[in-house]
């Protein structure tokens, strides 16, 4: 406890010093050139939560980029796309017209597809962390980039489940786009490993999951229940499982599950549940950048890092750096940003970031974190793990 306090105090001091330093620099060099990065996010509707989390990560990245760059500054111009393709396209057009040098895209392949098309027509670099469909990279756009993809999620989860060697797995999947795609991919992956898989697709409107869980309990009898869904579904599914207590050994989920926030709000549901994650909690980051991210995030939003914020933090950092490089060699105005993006090769909280010819990040793969009494322990893959998985391990 004391050690933690000292550590955070030191960091806080370091950061304040950094911030004052930056301010002094700002005052000293008022001629720093500012670039605008456009962004469209869902800020209303059912996906509003995701849009907010993305925005937080972006803002932190911008702060950190600006703090270390005396010559160039960036700022974010954010528009609510209301999870509507036409409004996302309008947003891209408006952002481009207002002078954004690049666009960060929101959430959902149905939004990202048309929006990045529009961006491509306007010759603007477009990066996203919220669209996983393979179709997007098949279009061959020269300006499209993304740091995460369905394959990465699949690999992360399949690695963990494969290592545990269960006989049978039941997948509960929302019929929304990203969860449905993930479930399809996982089914194939796991069957290829000789694991028996049953998939239960559910309509997103469902709130009572007991009938599904009971089917799994009495008919499937799996070793692991895998949830490909969203926050509100996890709560319903785990509650139903806690009531019916199927004879399984582990509950695995995906995005937005292994987060400190979920544990704070639903402490009785989360223990031993596994979800995709980048960081253990309390944050143990080896890299300087990660430490600073956690600290600035905490300072700005007074809470622990959210899952999607990490994604948007990394994409924004990568984009900022590419913008600064392009500005430095004078190619920013001449469409050189895409080329600079393609030169990206850096380590990050998500592992190594590179972009292939289609703009995809082939290295993307996720770690799996397990809720353990308020902490999150990374349990897979072995290279990233900081603890052993508790198996069998259940929230009840």
């Amino acid at each position, binding site marked *: 406890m004391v050690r933690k306090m000292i550590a955070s105090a030191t960091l806080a001091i370091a950061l304040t010093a950094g911030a004052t330093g930056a301010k002094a620099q700002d005052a000293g060099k008022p001629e720093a050139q500012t670039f605008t990065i456009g962004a469209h996010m869902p*800020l*209303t509707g059912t996906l*509003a939560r995701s849009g907010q989390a993305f925005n937080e990560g972006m803002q932190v990245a911008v702060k950190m980029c600006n703090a270390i760059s005396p010559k160039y500054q960036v700022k974010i111009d*954010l*528009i*609510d796309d209301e999870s*509507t*393709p*036409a*409004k996302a*396209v*309008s947003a891209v*057009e*408006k952002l*481009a*017209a207002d002078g954004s040098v690049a666009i960060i895209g929101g959430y959902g*392949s*149905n939004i990202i*597809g*048309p929006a990045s*098309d*529009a961006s491509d027509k*306007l010759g603007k670099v477009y990066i996203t962390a919220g669209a996983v*469909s393979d*179709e997007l990279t*098949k*279009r061959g756009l020269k300006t499209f980039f993304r740091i995460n993809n369905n394959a990465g999620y699949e690999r992360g989860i399949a690695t963990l489940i494969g290592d545990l060697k269960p006989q049978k797995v039941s997948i509960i999947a929302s*019929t*929304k*786009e990203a969860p*449905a*795609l993930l479930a399809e991919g996982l089914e194939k992956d796991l069957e290829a490993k000789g694991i028996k898989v049953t998939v239960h697709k559910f*309509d997103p409107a469902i709130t009572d999951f007991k009938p599904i869980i009971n089917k799994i309990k009495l008919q499937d009898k799996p070793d692991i229940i895998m949830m490909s869904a969203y926050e509100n579904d996890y709560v319903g599914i785990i509650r139903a499982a806690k009531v019916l207590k199927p004879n399984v050994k582990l509950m695995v989920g995906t995005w937005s599950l292994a987060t400190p926030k979920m544990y704070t709000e639903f402490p009785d549901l989360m223990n031993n549940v596994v979800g995709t994650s980048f960081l253990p909690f309390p944050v143990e980051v080896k890299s300087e950048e990660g430490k600073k991210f956690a600290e600035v995030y905490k300072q700005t939003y007074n809470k622990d890092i959210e899952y999607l914020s990490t994604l948007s933090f990394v994409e924004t950092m990568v984009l900022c750096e590419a913008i600064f490089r392009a500005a430095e060699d004078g190619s920013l105005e001449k469409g050189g940003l895409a080329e600079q993006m393609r030169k990206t090769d850096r380590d990050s909280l998500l592992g190594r970031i590179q972009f292939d010819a289609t703009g995809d990040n082939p290295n993307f793969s996720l770690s799996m974190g397990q809720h353990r009494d308020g902490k999150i322990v990374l349990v897979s893959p072995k290279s990233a793990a900081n603890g052993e998985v508790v198996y069998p391990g259940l929230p009840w």
Partner: protein
Amino acid sequence: MSVTSPATSAPVASSRFQGRGALLGAGLVILALLPLLTGASPYMLGLLISALILSGLALSWALLGNLGGMVSFGHAAFFGVGSYASALLAAKLGVPVLLAIPLGGVVATLSSIAMLPALRLSGPYFALAILAYAQIFRILATELDWLTGGAAGLQRYPGLPTLFGIDLADRAGSYVVVLACVVLFAVVYVLLRKSHVGTALRAIAESEDATRVVGVNATLLKSWMLFLSAFIAGVFGALNAHIIGFLEPDYAFSGVWSVMPIIAAVFGGYRSVLGPIFGAVVIYLFDQVIAKSLIPVGHQILLGIVLAIMVLLAPNGLAGLVRRFFTKGQFNKTSEKSHAGA
């Protein structure tokens, strides 16, 4: 009626009205082409395209309400069927896009046959029965993944083509196409209203029992209005699909396509022809340009407030306000006539 209908209403009207109608029509055409002539930005044209698609949908909704006496809460059903049908026809069977779009409307009309039993229902029951259909179609689009691509949706299907050297997929091109469709259906609506069928339909709206005695087949006429409304909504769904280039069930059958036309038509004045069209443009631009800059998150609250105020203070919408304004002046006779018509 001349205040609220374009030049095309002329054939039935007297020559005096014809002159004024032509003037009004010419004015409207110039107004509609203004964005192109002044070289509006792609952003502005994009907003206008979305607004006009909503105009078309609002027109279709108002036609059903006004001539058929039916309030629908589920126009997303037709919109979604039209968009999927057209995209699939173009992608899987290679039907030319400009032919696939009206066929999308035809398929939407066919889907409305399933709703014929709902015609016997009154008021809110009909409204929510259509909503149920929209939900059912959405779930079917998700479940029939061999056809529709399921939840992952459809992408990489053809967009609007290049015709006579004009790229219709371009913002300006798309704008003209959508605008032409809105004008076309507005003309059809006006002609229909002026026809004997229109008179009969208005009589039905007044009293169905009375018309039954006179021998008007109310149910048959109402079915035709349902078909026409479904066709129009389907065409605009198809247009939207080819302009956006991505479809998934949640989007194509989104509640937005049921809700926004109602807001737009009520705002503009659903009893007139131009009301829904202008209502959609005004409300969409207000929401996207003004409300959004005032309240970045949750700007729809302003939409709700505007709608509530309109219902309470100006139940005949913008068209009603305009008419009231002109009633004070020389247009007295005309507006009386239009009241009798509505």
